[in-house]
């Protein structure tokens, strides 16, 4: 069974939505940088998932910028997850296995990165 044209369209819509969402969040962050007088050459804020919601509520630029960066990095990963679903539904086991393997490689990167960060 071929899943390609429908899957291509679904992924295209996903990538478009992810791009606009990430650029929108980053743009809000940049505007807030200007309002708060933050320079790109100021010391970088440390990354912490738990701080993002409170920073966003407090309208701090780093909250929107970190969330925008996370959406940017997550968009291709969600694309692979959507592909995996499409291939499973289409009965394409080889491509489903490739999709799982890609997600596994990225997961290894996250685990190693978290280990280094500690």
């Amino acid at each position, binding site marked *: 069974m071929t899943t390609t044209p429908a899957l291509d369209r679904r992924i295209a819509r996903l990538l478009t939505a992810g791009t606009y969402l990430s650029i929108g969040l*980053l743009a809000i962050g940049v505007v807030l940088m200007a309002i708060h007088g933050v320079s790109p050459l100021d010391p970088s804020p440390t990354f912490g998932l738990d701080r993002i919601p409170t920073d966003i509520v407090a309208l701090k630029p780093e909250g929107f910028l970190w969330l925008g960066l996370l959406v940017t990095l997550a968009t291709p990963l969600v694309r692979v997850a959507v592909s995996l679903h499409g291939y499973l539904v289409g009965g394409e086991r080889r491509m489903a296995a490739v999709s799982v393997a890609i997600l596994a490689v990225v997961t290894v990167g996250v685990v190693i990165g978290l280990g*280094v960060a500690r």
Partner: protein
Amino acid sequence: MPDAGIAALMIVAGVAVGTFGSLVGLGGGVLLVPVLTLGFGLPLREAVGVSLVAVIVTSSASAAVYLERHVADLRLGMTLELFTASGALIGGLVAFALSEQVLAALFTAMLVYTALSMARRRDAASTTVSAAASDIASAPSAAAPGTGVGDPGRPYVVRNLGLGIVGSLFAGLVSALLGVGGGVVKVPLMHLAMGVPLRVATATSNLMIGITGAASAIIYLLHGGIDPFVAGPTSVGVFIGASIGSRSAHRVDVRILRLLFVGVLLVTASQMAGRALR
């Protein structure tokens, strides 16, 4: 300079890099990293992390168009990006073990290689989406034999998968070390070694950048190697620039622009070489 002025300057630099890169068919990374290091004084590794974010943004945007028009080969892209992601994972870890001088030397080599590749390229319109779409539309409609790789129904046969895998690992490594999309490696690899039409290779390479970049950018992020105050303005700028470039490509003499680009790359390479020798 006031804080807002520096951010505005970074947006403008991003727009210029995105426009220029889009017009000559390259992602922004090859120019963005030198702009951030030589222009704004950022450490090279930090510039690479920021550049990875920018190339993911532009890749996602253009890959959506390529997929919508059914130009990118999703199956081939996903098969190869398993290996570009693996290479990027290794590269993301190695990058933090290398000195700035070594990274600068590697970047210099990549700039010279890219300049030579650009100088030799003949097909001025090879990377535009519209040209890609017409290329596919005019291709013969015979179904490709079942190679197991590549979308079914494509009018070409994907060959030399082993070479493609090795090349993809290398492309991922280069991407993670230098903050570029790696198209200068992947496009010739797919086109010349694997028998994929140039426009499909360009579109598929673009699609692969997202996962390749994300695999290494996650390591940079968790290492503290991505500064959001820099990544924000530059990514927004590169995105705007890439949009401008893709809309105005047909109005510009790309051959002259490409020659100019080769000159810019060589000047940048000489300055980056100076940084490597410090």
